[in-house]
């Protein structure tokens, strides 16, 4: 069957599935809307968390980044998985015990302060909105590339699907669709990887294939890769660090604590029945995530090797531009792959030397998206990759939108401005907030602001420097006061934002970067994307200092902290 038809069929079938689930899993109460009724099985929640967490960036971009960074790309692998250890050990069980609906609600109650709650809402909304823009772009791009509809039409279809199941079902609908989306995305990711690993090394497990010898030789795949990239002037694949070791350390730590502090991930642990379930569920989430994350470095190494050996089959023998394969032509059309015959010999030279390199653009994203074509896999695999990319973007977008809408309807409306509304009114308000959040995300998807490219730095920086420390101190210390927590959050936030803005421009407008995006000006050589860890340390220090000189928290807060530390017994604070 033709690729186009097949892609329509596969994507159409998955969308039909999501809509079917939406109709089946409608939410009838605020508890169902915010936390899916609190009755999700820990394994099911683990699967939904995995889909929630793995975004368009994990699915489409990560392997490409690793392919071009080599060892340096490890910061993403360790950072985006190690955060779940922190989540499981430091946050999830206690927040589940607290037993409410949102992250700002915990911060507001623990720090007995409406101001703290509002500060938390602001951090949550900024982090989640910047994050959701990337997902919306992912949806539009996946549609336009695979289904050949316009970017705008693709975005509209994506928004309509999310609208359907998120507004109707809230967390309940989102949970069950995320489970389906996980299955789609993991098949779409691993099947091409298995084929490619078999082709290159004869081993069906990509994780083992990466450490195996190439078919018909006794050369290890990684040794060949090292040799090929070094011959053409790049740094050795398996040892090239990202800038320097301090920076790798800070970057990994920032991604870890940022992961543990992202509200859309945390709220998933409010949906399981018991505290013990929150612990195991985090383990299952990481199992499902690890399947993709241990495959990704194999995809990266193998795709890089395939790309290099397509262009230069043996040293000094270059592919003629006129003989380029079909995928090369297809991706040239999208502008993600660009060739410029600098020396006019009709051959393709691909080297690290910018003056002679003729592959003037090789976008990261191509590595996963074009991988099946480069490896000459059947059309149905390519169609599956399209559906997988969409599943990854849709599932993360829905989780983020729920975090945003519940912060608006539950924390701002019910918690601060209109405490008197009934549950029915709140449920209606949460649906309206969800619809508004989708509309806003869609608007930002149609008109991506200039700072869209820098949003990952912002989202992780905010979560790491403001939300994670506040939650952790709220659980592990009685002594941190409301003044301490608020001052800490604001200090962490300001330092991180200032650092990102001074090097990348205010709101990422390059002209306003008063210190320039230059390595010599970086504090200890740490790049702006990696600065969340420093912001977090400042948050902890400021909160501890201010708490020392302000009045101790009241007695009932002390009891509440003791109470969330043990799984049994009811929470002492009044319901509101």
């Amino acid at each position: 069957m033709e690729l186009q038809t097949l892609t329509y069929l596969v994507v159409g079938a998955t969308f039909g599935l999501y809509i079917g689930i939406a109709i089946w899993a409608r939410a009838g109460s605020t508890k169902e809307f915010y936390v899916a009724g609190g009755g999700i099985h820990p394994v099911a929640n683990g699967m939904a968390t995995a889909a929630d967490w793995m975004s368009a960036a994990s699915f489409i971009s990560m392997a490409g980044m690793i392919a071009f960074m080599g060892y340096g790309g490890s910061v993403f692998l360790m950072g985006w998985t190690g955060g779940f250890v922190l989540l499981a050990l430091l946050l999830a069980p206690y927040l589940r015990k607290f037993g409410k609906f949102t992250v700002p609600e915990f911060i507001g109650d623990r720090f007995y302060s409406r101001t703290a709650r509002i500060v938390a809402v602001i951090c949550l909304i900024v982090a989640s909105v910047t994050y959701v823009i990337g997902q919306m772009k992912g949806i539009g791009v996946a549609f336009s590339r695979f289904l050949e509809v316009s970017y705008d039409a693709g975005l509209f279809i994506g928004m309509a699907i999310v609208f359907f199941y998120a507004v109707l079902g809230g967390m309940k609908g989102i949970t069950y669709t995320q489970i389906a989306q996980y299955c789609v995305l993991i098949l779409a990711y691993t099947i091409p990887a298995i084929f490619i690993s078999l082709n290159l090394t004869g081993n069906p497990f990509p994780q083992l294939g990466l450490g195996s010898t190439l078919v018909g030789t006794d050369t290890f795949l990684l040794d060949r890769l090292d040799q090929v990239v070094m011959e053409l002037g790049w740094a050795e694949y398996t040892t090239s660090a990202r800038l320097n070791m301090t920076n790798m350390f800070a970057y990994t730590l920032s991604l870890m604590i940022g992961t543990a502090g992202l509200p859309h991930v945390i709220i998933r642990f409010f949906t399981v029945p018991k505290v013990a379930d929150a612990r195991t569920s985090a383990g299952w989430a990481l199992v499902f995530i690890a399947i993709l994350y241990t495959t990704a470095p194999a995809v990266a190494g193998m795709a890089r090797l395939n790309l290099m050996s397509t262009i230069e089959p043996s040293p000094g023998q270059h592919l003629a531009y006129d003989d380029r394969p079909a995928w090369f032509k297809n991706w040239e059309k999208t502008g993600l792959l660009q060739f410029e015959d600098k020396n006019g010999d009709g051959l393709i030279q691909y080297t690290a030397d910018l003056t002679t390199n003729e592959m003037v653009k090789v976008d990261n994203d191509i590595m996963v998206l074009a991988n099946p074509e480069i490896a000459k896999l059947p059309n149905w695999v390519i169609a599956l990759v399209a559906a997988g990319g969409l599943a990854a973007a849709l599932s993360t977008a829905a989780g983020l939108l729920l975090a945003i809408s519940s912060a608006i309807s539950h924390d701002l409306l019910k918690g601060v401005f209109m405490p008197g509304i009934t549950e029915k009114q709140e449920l209606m308000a949460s649906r309206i907030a969800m619809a508004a959040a989708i509309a806003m995300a869609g608007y930002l998807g149609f008109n991506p602001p200039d700072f869209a490219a820098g949003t990952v730095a912002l989202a992780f920086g905010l979560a790491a420097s403001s939300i994670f420390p506040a939650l952790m101190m709220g659980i592990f210390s009685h002594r941190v006061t409301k003044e301490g927590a608020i001052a800490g959050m604001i200090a962490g936030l300001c330092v991180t934002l200032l650092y990102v803005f001074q090097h990348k421009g205010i709101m990422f407008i390059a002209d306003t970067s008063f210190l320039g995006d230059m390595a010599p000006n970086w504090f200890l050589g740490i790049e702006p994307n990696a600065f969340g860890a420093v912001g977090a340390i400042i948050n902890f220090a400021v909160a501890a200092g201010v708490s020392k000189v302000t009045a101790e928290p009241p007695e009932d807060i002390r009891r509440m902290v003791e109470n969330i530390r043990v799984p049994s017994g009811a929470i002492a604070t009044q319901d509101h």
Partner: protein
Amino acid sequence: MSTSNNAYWKANLRLMFKLLLVWFVVSFGFGILLFDLLNTIQIGGYKLGFWFAQQGSIYVFVALIFIYSRKMAKLDRQFGVEE
């Protein structure tokens, strides 16, 4: 806090510190700080430091969470604080 709950919390913290130490060693230790040293050891096609950075640390993370949840379930029963 009752003395029993206090002992439960202390036991929890001890377990947590041990597991976080492993978490730190496999990722920041083996994957970053001791990277060059470990790379002198080769397992199959993998240099050991590279393997920890791109594969091994992730497997250990998964194991750590399950060890934590199993041991905590035991502590919950021992101190009679399970739900």
